[in-house]
């Protein structure tokens, strides 16, 4: 498997660390009920098909990446920076 890092280009999977579902980015409001926080922290779908995931380019530029891919066909649809390159 290869991912095209928006900063480094086409790289081998070995350079990346897999974090999990991109649902982690949808953090509940601080005042949200405890149940919302528990669901956000613990509940994950396990879809066969298109998923959005967080990957970390650990052995490269150290960017967090949002990868959209298909867990059945292994097709990678997109790799985007979680924090835009011009964020500063």
């Amino acid at each position, binding site marked *: 498997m290869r991912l095209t890092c928006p*900063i*480094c280009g086409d*790289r081998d999977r*070995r*350079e990346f660390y897999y974090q999990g579902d991109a649902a982690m980015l949808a953090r509940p409001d601080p005042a949200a009920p405890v149940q919302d926080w528990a669901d956000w922290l613990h509940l994950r779908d396990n879809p066969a098909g298109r998923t959005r995931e967080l990957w970390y380019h*650990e*052995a*490269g530029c*150290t960017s967090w990446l949002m990868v959209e891919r298909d867990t059945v066909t292994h097709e990678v649809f997109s790799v985007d920076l979680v924090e835009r390159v011009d964020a*500063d």
Partner: protein
Amino acid sequence: MVDLTALTPCSGLLPLRKGTVTLSELDPGRITSLMPFGGQRAALSAALERAHGLGFPAPGRVTQTEGATCLWTARDQAFLMGPDPDPALADHAAMTDQSDAWAVVLLAGEDTEDVLARLVPIDLRPAAFPEGSAARTLCQHMTVSISRRAEGLQIMCFRSMARTLAHEIADVMASVAGRRAAG
């Protein structure tokens, strides 16, 4: 006061020559990491230009001038190598002294890219990785910074891994040299 003898990271390990390839240690001089503060990248680049005559490198690039190099090492991070950093840079970037924290080696010779092809998961042939290119990637299990200089490929790893780096590369150099000798 005790007079201590400074040893380089690869002291006693290098240089090595096998087949067409030579692995030798480089003295990078002072190494300072520069991480621009939010919104300060352009200002840092201008300050670098004034003080040291080179700009802050784009991702995957090296900027260079007589006696100084600025090497891209990660997102929003580059290493100024060679001179003592101008104090004015501190207005625009977080700076840390990295001198002596890195082992810096040079791999040169005809089969250089063939050697690293067995260790590094990116294409380092000159057509894909010309002079002035820099990458953060892996050498076996270690994270390294690799950049192309006129003389060959510069490889940097954490000083604590110097022996492993020299060992891994030396093994592969012997293997590639053996292949060449066998025809």
